[in-house]
């Protein structure tokens, strides 16, 4: 996805620099929400300010909105068809694999200290076996991360893998 954005936005339109794309990746991965939407908001903002951010965000969302709204009405008819239902059953299995792939890339983003693995296992157990609100699990993770990095392990944190390139662009 990043290479497609880079080609469109940097090479074709000249809206952003290559360094901006690096920043975009860092921001998109460390702010809430869907990464594709965050990327669009960032590029829109860089190009044309707040209005640009709004327009780019609408732009990246609109196809989903239109396609899914249309498909919704076809879905009932679809699913009563034996073969379509069979295809969906196949895709559902594939979705599990895609979630697994997402977990691997999320895992690559996190630090590999024992503290992090405790949080990982802890959140897994609480989310799997209790009804504890997921939002609170995330907030507790944030607080513990804050305490750990400010009081226990004060070394320089790695924001993201493209950090080195960012430092270059700041000079």
């Amino acid at each position, binding site marked *: 996805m990043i290479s497609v954005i880079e080609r469109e936005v940097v090479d074709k339109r000249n809206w952003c620099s290559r360094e901006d794309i690096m920043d975009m990746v860092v*921001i998109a991965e460390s702010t809430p*929400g869907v990464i594709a939407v965050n990327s669009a908001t960032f590029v829109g903002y860089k190009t044309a300010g707040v209005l640009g951010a709004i327009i780019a965000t609408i732009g990246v969302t609109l196809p989903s909105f239109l396609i899914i709204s249309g*498909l919704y009405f076809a879905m009932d008819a679809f699913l009563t068809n034996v073969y379509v239902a069979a295809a969906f059953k196949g895709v559902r299995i594939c979705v599990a694999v895609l979630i697994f792939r997402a977990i691997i890339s999320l895992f690559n983003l996190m630090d590999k200290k024992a503290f992090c693995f405790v949080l990982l296992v802890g959140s897994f157990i609480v989310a799997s076996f209790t009804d504890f609100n997921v939002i609170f699990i995330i907030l507790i993770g944030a607080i513990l991360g804050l305490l750990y990095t400010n009081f226990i392990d004060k070394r320089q944190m790695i924001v993201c893998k493209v950090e080195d390139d960012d430092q270059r662009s700041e000079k």
Partner: protein
Amino acid sequence: MIFLQLFWTYFKIGLFTIGGGYAMLPLVRQQVIGVYVPEELFWNMLAVSEATPGPFAINLATFVGMNVGINQGGVLLGFFGAFVATTAVILPSLVIVTIVSTVFIKFKSSKFIQGALYGIRPVVVGLVFSALVMVTLTLILPNLKLDDLANSTFGGFDYVSLILLIVFAALSFVKIKGKRLNPLVLIGISAVVGIGVFGFAGL
């Protein structure tokens, strides 16, 4: 009013998920399944959302909103529901990314934000892993109902789905010219295999 409630739910989903659309799944599982859509329909929506263009979390939000609206009475309310859910899920992104873009240097060097992110990242991995376990369980134990555990059983082990799961997982690690298979290709393959195995062979 259900639309306000829907807006609030999706606003929270958009606000508290760091790490992309898949990171939303744990929250969606807890706050959407059984509340706005029945479980079976939800899994089908998830499959359609993956197989259509656009970020799947946005597709899913539109889907759920549409369903809520239509159940309130008619197509127009359906579109309104879709609009509400989609807007709610992107609104936090829009505001936060715009602010962060203006103060990016401070954002990057802020001990407060980076410390919080340091803790959030592993938590999200654990949460999404928990969601994956749920998804896998519903695939291989079709009689298990997440929103009605009291009335579900562990019977009817679906070994065909388990085998396919392992096959697709292996396939997803196959590299062609140093690149892993595109998710859309993987989805296409799984649809065709699904038709063959569940449709024609009738397993």
